[in-house]
């Protein structure tokens, strides 16, 4: 037997039933234990798609022939592309790529059909936002085949001789922002948002819960100190922590991963304040909901999981089904990632990041309001 005495089955049962009772009493832990696996199942099972389809595309058509229309129609049918406009100007198209509203720009040169019929092998230019290589690679390789097959059908009768020999068009692919398709360029700046989300939400979620759990809240509440003072007093130190984390990641990006930093760093540091505050707001709200520190950590993870999986950090945003994209659009990390990548890799200006700035601001206002409303200045 050994092991210091005998095994008592009844004692064993007593422990098990006690654990169950405690588990049932602790509703949040229970909900989390159920919720996290479900969440993971949903996310990994349905939401993740490394073969993104329906990527928004604009067409700069310098030629309105039947061949152009055939190519555009074939792109649509391939499922990889979703042509949202065929009437943009060059500047508009450039802007749409820079702000991340479209993934591709297809340029059909003037006189395209004429050159094609004459067998002069005209070129088709497909410009891609290659910030996230995973999002574009499949679509890019599909495009060449799509275009050639589409034209092959049109080139019959007297033109059928053009189908023989070399391909009738010369497809030129121009990946912008991350031309070598280096995954780190995409991941490392993104990591900044992920690390800030993870640590700041957890730390602040613990901040007030810890006071309650250790009984120090009772002393604090009996003094003249105001809720807002406590909240802000707890937030500021962590904002500083957040900036230190950013600094470390930026230095590592630049020196270790050689990520080209094109945009304005001060703009990035400035708008990051909103993102940091939004996360702290979430943490504070959790800390007013949680009854102990364990619950606070669990809630933080409950927020962190969709943030990391649905924000476009781990998987291309456009590869997710629409419902998952809708959830992603709510999360501050989604917008922050676009801002960080936009500024660092594309040199975005303030105007260009604005569409992603106001959702973070809205989130911040809502989370801080809930946090402050829920902060109880009494013990009941």
């Amino acid at each position, binding site marked *: 037997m050994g092991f210091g005495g005998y095994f008592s089955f009844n004692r064993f049962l007593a422990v098990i039933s006690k654990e169950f009772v405690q588990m049932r009493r602790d509703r949040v832990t229970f909900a989390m234990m159920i919720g996290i696996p479900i969440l993971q199942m949903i996310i990994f099972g349905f939401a993740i798609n490394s073969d993104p389809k329906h990527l928004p595309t604009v067409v700069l058509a310098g030629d309105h022939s039947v061949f152009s229309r055939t190519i555009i129609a074939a792109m649509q049918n391939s499922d990889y592309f979703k042509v949202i406009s065929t009437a943009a100007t060059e500047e508009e198209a450039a802007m749409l790529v820079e702000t991340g509203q479209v993934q591709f720009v297809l340029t059909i040169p003037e006189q395209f059909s004429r050159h094609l019929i004459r067998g002069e092998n005209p070129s088709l230019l497909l410009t891609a936002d290659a910030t996230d290589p995973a999002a574009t690679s499949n679509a890019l390789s599909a495009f060449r085949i799509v275009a050639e097959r589409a034209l092959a059908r049109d080139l019959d009768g007297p033109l059928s001789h053009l189908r023989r020999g070399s391909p009738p068009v010369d497809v030129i692919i121009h990946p912008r922002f991350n031309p070598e398709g280096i995954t780190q360029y995409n991941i490392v700046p993104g990591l900044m948002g992920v690390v800030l989300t993870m640590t700041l939400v957890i730390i602040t979620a613990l901040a007030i819960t810890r006071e309650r759990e250790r*009984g120090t809240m*009772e*002393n604090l509440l*009996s003094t*003249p100190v105001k809720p807002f003072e406590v909240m802000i007093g707890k937030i500021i130190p962590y904002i500083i922590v957040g900036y230190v984390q950013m600094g470390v990641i930026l230095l590592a990006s630049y020196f270790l991963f050689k990520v080209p930093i094109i945009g304005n760093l001060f703009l990035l540091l400035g708008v990051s304040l909103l993102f940091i505050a939004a996360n702290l707001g979430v943490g504070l709200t959790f800390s007013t909901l949680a009854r102990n520190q364990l619950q606070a950590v669990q809630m933080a993870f409950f927020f962190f999981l969709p943030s990391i999986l649905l924000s476009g950090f781990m998987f291309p945003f456009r590869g997710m089904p629409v419902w998952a994209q809708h959830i992603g659009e709510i999360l501050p990390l989604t917008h922050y990632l676009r801002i960080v990548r936009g500024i660092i890799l594309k040199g975005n200006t303030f105007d260009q990041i604005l569409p992603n700035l106001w959702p973070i601001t809205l989130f911040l206002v809502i989370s801080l309001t809930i946090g402050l409303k829920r902060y109880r200045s009494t013990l009941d």
Partner: protein
Amino acid sequence: MADASPVIAVRNLTKSFSGKTVVNKLSLQINPGEIYGFLGPNGSGKTTFIRMLSGLLRPDSGSGTCLGFDILRESGKIKPLIGYMAQRFSLYEDLSVRENLNFMARIYRINNMRRTVDETVERMGLSRFANQLAGTLSGGWKQRLALSACLLHRPRLLLLDEPTAGVDPKARRDFWDDIYSLAAEGVTSLISTHYMDEAERCHRLAYLAYGDLLVSGTADEVVSRSGLKTRAVSGANLHLLSPELKPLAGVEQVVPFGSTLHVSGHDEELLDQSLNSLKNGKYTWQKIDANLEEVFISLMQEREGG
């Protein structure tokens, strides 16, 4: 002292938690400079009552003032004037003694923070521990630190919730010395305790049982109002006598007290009649005053009896 309006005056204060009444229509007045004792078994609502006074809990009904301010609407004005010491040590265990005091001094926005803290550390005998983490102090010193922390801003009212629980006699004596000198300066104290010797040190006291205020007044008043009569028995082999006494008519309590047994009951005639049968020369009997503990236990027995 002539026109001294009460420091605490509450009427019908009631608080319940999920349907269970914890403080039941409690009315109480405490005067300036008074040391007021708060007694009663665990779970009687002492802590809840003190928390309502200090603005930590909102009463369900009733009204009252604390230092002239309404406890329901003006807790913001009350808080800077009171010193509250929670039942559980509620300073930061991971801060040093001095850091804790500095923190509290800042919260109360004390001028000359450094000097005030230095003086307090000195006066309360905390110098040795000034840089020690509060979590590593012994119970007695933690209590002393907590008291120091709530004296920094020179409050006019101290609300002390079981401040001496688990503290050694010397530290308790020091604590009471402090409370007395503060009272002499006009500081009022409301102190909850389980110790009878401390109850007797209070100017006045109240006894709470499961939300109800059973009795209040000076220690003497409480004893005489209870109408409890007590006899002390001494002699050899008292432990043999005790089981014989308990079933007798008129005997409500038999309590060993040092080398004597205290036998008490409300009906003096019946008590003496019953005891006569045992007066056979082996024991010495003596008429004494009931003590507070006997009174409180008898109050609880009456309450439970119906």
